[in-house]
């Protein structure tokens, strides 16, 4: 009898596209969670969601952020981050990342990092680490559109 190969045993990290046009639909997140129901070795899901905040800059409220990226470099960097994450947390079962491009209104979701693992610690630590790495290392650019029509280029601090 052939041994059963579990998904977790084959960790090949092809360059996958994390980018989605427009906001991340909460229904998509719910469906992502539901897809893991068959993976009964998972005991913990950890999800970070980024939402566009209506910051007030010089008295003008941010209405939306228009995201763009240097896609090839971003996906290459993301593959490296993913590989490093699975090296640091080998017990992690899976890791899903999505980031919006285009215009995302205040209150809409623009970023999701979703890790699952048998136990909570690795999923939680991995998500926090991956979120920070993506913010620091991925060439993603954000134009904050303010009320009245102007814009300000966002920068992560």
């Amino acid at each position, binding site marked *: 009898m052939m041994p059963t190969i579990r998904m977790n045993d084959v960790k090949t990290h092809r360059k996958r596209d994390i980018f989605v046009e427009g906001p991340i639909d909460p229904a998509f997140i719910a469906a992502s969670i539901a897809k893991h129901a068959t993976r009964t070795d998972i005991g913990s899901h950890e999800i970070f969601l980024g939402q566009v905040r209506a910051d007030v800059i010089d008295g003008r409220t941010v209405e939306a952020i228009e995201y763009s*990226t240097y896609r090839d470099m971003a996906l290459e960097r993301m593959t490296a981050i993913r590989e490093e994450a699975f090296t640091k947390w080998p017990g992690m079962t899976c890791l899903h990342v999505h980031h919006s491009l285009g215009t995302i209104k205040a209150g809409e979701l623009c970023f999701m990092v979703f890790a699952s693992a048998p136990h909570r610690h690795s999923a939680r630590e991995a998500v926090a680490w991956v979120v920070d790495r993506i913010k620091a290392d991925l060439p993603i650019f954000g134009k904050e559109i303010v009320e009245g029509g102007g814009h300000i280029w966002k920068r*992560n601090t």
Partner: protein
Amino acid sequence: MKVLLFGLIAERAGTPTLELSAASTNELKVRLAEHIEGLAALTYAIAVDHRMVIGNMPLNGHEEVAVLPPFAGG
């Protein structure tokens, strides 16, 4: 070489690409400043073949060169 511009840098240049020749990233910065008004006052980094350049680096003209303003993902 074709130089890719992004975000604020592309906006200031009025184009997403520039055709420039430079033998190093330091020389490229001089060429960029000639084409993009006010570049000296902006924060940006140069990426060569998807890697951020620290200091100066020679260029042979066959690399993929990009000018990147501060990142804002998340």
